């Protein structure tokens, strides 16, 4: 069965290693924090100016001066630090952040990603996404495999305005874990109960299907 958003986040959490500084985008990526193993040390960076972001505050303890990049009230862990926006992007542009997890509207098999604009329809802006994808060496995209009309978002080529070029390395969708390899999507894992054929049918881009494809474990 296709994964829920929480399950996508849970699968991605396995990619988070001990000692990683991680930037989580808005949406599914934010949920990843809930599933990271307790026995490893990870620090979450939010580009509006905190390293060592903690969980939501207890009711009544919200502070307007303490939010994340999604404008949600948060807390700071022990050992956290606050800094200005330029310093925040020094961390990102300077490749000090180890892992970037973000959402996408489309991903192409050359690693292009589109997630900030639908011409004539929706223009929210790129926020920090363009800086993140242009700089990060380790980018995982969390997204649904298809749109509401059932059309694939895993493409040969992006149709929407790009956020970054040749930058995505790994994609985790509700159906599969994919890795960009030589201009194609290598199918690494299937969602439990989802067949290779179903994934193939939902994927417009070229798939590399090599041997037995294991089901995801969490």
């Amino acid at each position: 069965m296709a994964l829920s958003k929480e399950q996508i986040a849970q699968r991605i959490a396995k990619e988070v290693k001990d000692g990683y500084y991680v930037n989580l985008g808005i949406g599914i990526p934010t949920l990843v924090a809930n599933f990271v193993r307790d026995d490893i040390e990870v620090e979450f960076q939010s580009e509006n100016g905190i390293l060592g972001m903690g969980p939501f505050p207890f009711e009544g303890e919200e502070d307007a001066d303490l939010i994340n990049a999604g404008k949600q009230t948060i807390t700071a862990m022990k050992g956290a630090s606050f800094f200005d926006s330029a310093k925040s992007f020094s961390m990102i542009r300077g490749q000090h952040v180890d892992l970037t997890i973000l959402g996408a509207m489309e991903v192409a098999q050359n690693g292009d990603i589109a997630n900030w604009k639908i011409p004539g329809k929706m223009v929210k802006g790129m926020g920090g996404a363009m800086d993140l994808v242009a700089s990060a060496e380790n980018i995982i995209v969390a997204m649904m495999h298809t749109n509401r009309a059932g059309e694939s978002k895993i493409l040969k080529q992006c149709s929407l305005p790009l956020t970054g070029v040749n930058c995505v390395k790994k994609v985790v969708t509700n159906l599969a874990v994919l890795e960009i390899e030589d201009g194609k999507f290598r199918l690494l894992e299937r969602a439990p109960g989802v067949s290779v054929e179903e994934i193939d049918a939902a994927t417009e881009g070229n798939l590399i299907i090599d041997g037995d494809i294991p089901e995801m474990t969490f």
Partner: protein
Amino acid sequence: MINKTVKDVTTACKGVKDGMTFMLGGFGLSGIPENAIAQLVKLNVKQVTCISNNAGVDDFGLGLLLQKHQIKKMISSYVGENAEFERQMLSGELDVELIPQGTLAQRCLAAQSGVPAFYTPAGYGTEVGEGKESREFNGKMHLLEHAFNADFAFVKAWKGDTAGNLIFKGTARNFNPNMCGAATITVAEVEELVPAGELDPNQIHIPGIFVQRIFQGEKYEKRIEQRTVRKK
């Protein structure tokens, strides 16, 4: 010490004119210069260009200037929380330049620092890079980006002293320090204004040299945009 104190927001905003370019600190509604924004609404300056990461919400922050059609152009990285903004933009009433957030911050810092231009990888190969010079460094393509040029920077700090030194709080810091000294005149409003000498010189985030006018702000609402909590 050189005294940067002005008595109120009216004096602090003296000299703002139609058609000027303003920088405004804040991320979402956090750390925005509430008093200065209210004064700009009151003064009804028109045709202004605003450099600010976000555009407020419909009835708070820069949304207040948008409602009165005071803004000709917005230079931001993310404007997703504002229906009136989207309406004005899609209808063509409002000119919008969307740029990557890190580039926005660095262009402020460059203006503060007298660095006229710098290279960044952000936006290469996208719409953002169209018409811009690009160049390879270390095997990777970068765009040439320029320092901003603004008339006024309006920032909000937590504490400040009469010499113009500023200390920010939590993530309300954001773009505020980067905009200080990045415009011809920097106006800082603070929650608490103290005499010079009361702040620890080791803990000052922005030295007073980057601030031309400082005043004690009033009636901070400090609205929370997304109240997210967990149960005890």
